[in-house]
């Protein structure tokens, strides 16, 4: 499984694109929002955590279809399915690779982009923490969606349609925890719920995703 | 016709929307059902001819 992780990371690094594109998209979204809502600092500061969460979610969505698509096309997935690694492990490792290459850079960049929106000081910390806790769920749910649509020719748009509703609880708890934290309110409850969603997704969704993959390989 | 007062628009509107949506659903279901029935009849007839 470490071999698979190492390979996926090597591929992402050599293909370039991987981190760069998602990060650039995130930056552009964060830049466009002030143009749309106006430069007023107070307004921007108020909506910053929400925008940063939505932006991270969309940037994460961009590269989801590549989690399994390339391996499906070049036959690697067939060979992995007959390899001694359980399919659930393959799914979990690929979701982890997606998190490391796409989501983690977003988590690190989010506080910096927060500065563009006049986010108050505690915001840097809270946006980082909530994204750090929440993005593994985004990657895992995304891997499930990618597994469902891997055999389809134009699966990209369908993938968004399937995955975005599944992102709603994560988004609500993540943005809520960040907003409350910035306002200086108690935010243990949404943080715990966010962590709960991440833990449950990482524990259970590999089974659903590997079932979907096996169905698609038939 | 009962007197609906100031809510007439809302009441009539929601009834119209609901009944309209249901009508569309029934029409769609009916058309699909007829098409499937005709298609199956055609293909079964073709099989009969081939066998007989």
């Amino acid at each position, binding site marked *: 499984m470490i*071999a698979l992780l190492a*390979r996926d990371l090597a591929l992402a690094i050599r293909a370039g694109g991987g981190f760069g594109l998602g990060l650039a998209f995130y930056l552009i979204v964060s830049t466009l929002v002030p143009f749309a809502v106006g430069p007023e600092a107070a307004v921007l500061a108020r909506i910053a955590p929400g925008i940063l969460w939505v932006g991270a979610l969309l940037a994460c969505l961009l590269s989801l279809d590549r989690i399994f698509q390339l391996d499906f096309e*070049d*036959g690697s997935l*067939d060979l992995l399915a007959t390899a*001694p690694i359980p399919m659930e492990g393959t799914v979990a490792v690929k979701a982890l690779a997606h998190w490391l290459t796409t989501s983690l850079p977003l988590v690190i960049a989010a506080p910096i982009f927060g500065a563009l929106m006049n986010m108050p000081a505690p915001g840097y910390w809270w946006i980082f923490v909530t994204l750090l806790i929440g993005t593994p769920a985004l990657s895992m749910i995304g891997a499930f969606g990618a597994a469902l649509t891997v055999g389809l020719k134009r699966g990209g748009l369908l993938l968004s349609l399937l995955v975005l509703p599944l992102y709603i609880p994560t988004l609500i708890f993540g943005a809520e925890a960040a907003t409350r934290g910035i306002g200086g309110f108690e935010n243990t409850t949404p943080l715990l719920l966010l962590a709960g969603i991440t833990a449950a997704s990482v524990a259970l969704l590999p089974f659903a995703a590997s079932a979907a993959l096996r169905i698609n*390989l038939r | 016709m009962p007197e609906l007062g100031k809510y007439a628009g809302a009441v009539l509107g929601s009834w119209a929307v609901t009944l309209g949506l249901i009508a569309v659903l029934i029409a769609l279901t009916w058309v699909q059902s007829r098409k499937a029935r005709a298609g199956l009849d055609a293909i079964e007839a073709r099989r009969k001819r081939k066998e007989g």
Partner: protein
Amino acid sequence: MSTMTLEARDLTVSRGGVPVLEGLSFRLDPGQVLVLRGPNGSGKTTLLRTLAGLQPPMAGEVSLPPEAIAYGAHADGLKSTLTVAENLRFWARVHGVHDIEPALDRLNLQALRQRAAQNLSAGQKRRLGLARLLVTGRAIWLLDEPTVSLDRASVALFADVVRAHISAGGAALIATHIDLGLETEIFDVTPFKADPNAPSRTPTPFDEAFA
């Protein structure tokens, strides 16, 4: 490897819910090479995928020891940006094997080991795909047209590899039209073609099994 026998009993395989081959019974013992023959679209690939466990059989059963199968498909599962050695090392590590040198030697890939897979010719890619079989450490090879795009010398090389594999107690089931010059048995699947209109399959207009 005395128990490494693959056996199919009264097997029916299906593609898209429709049976393509039915009533297949055969066994593949260690040291045996079985060559699958049959026209294009006759279901050889479907049969191999079913035996490899990628799809469930429609009827009948397959018995084989666990983790004994190495499947070689049309696609080699190579990553174009990785080098020959990296590609091979990946599959070796997945299967818990550490030494890739013998496989590189046997398929004459040593000179190419640092070349990225995207710069290989079709035949070289195929050789790399076949080298993958050696690093799986598995006894029963299921190969789907393994000699496509190989020149005559490479086919001979491949035949040597298969010969060495079976003399070490392995076995191979190969779908190919080429004569490999091996001691092989031919298994022609044509007679087992499923009759889509067989009366046994459509007893009533709406059978439980739709297709």
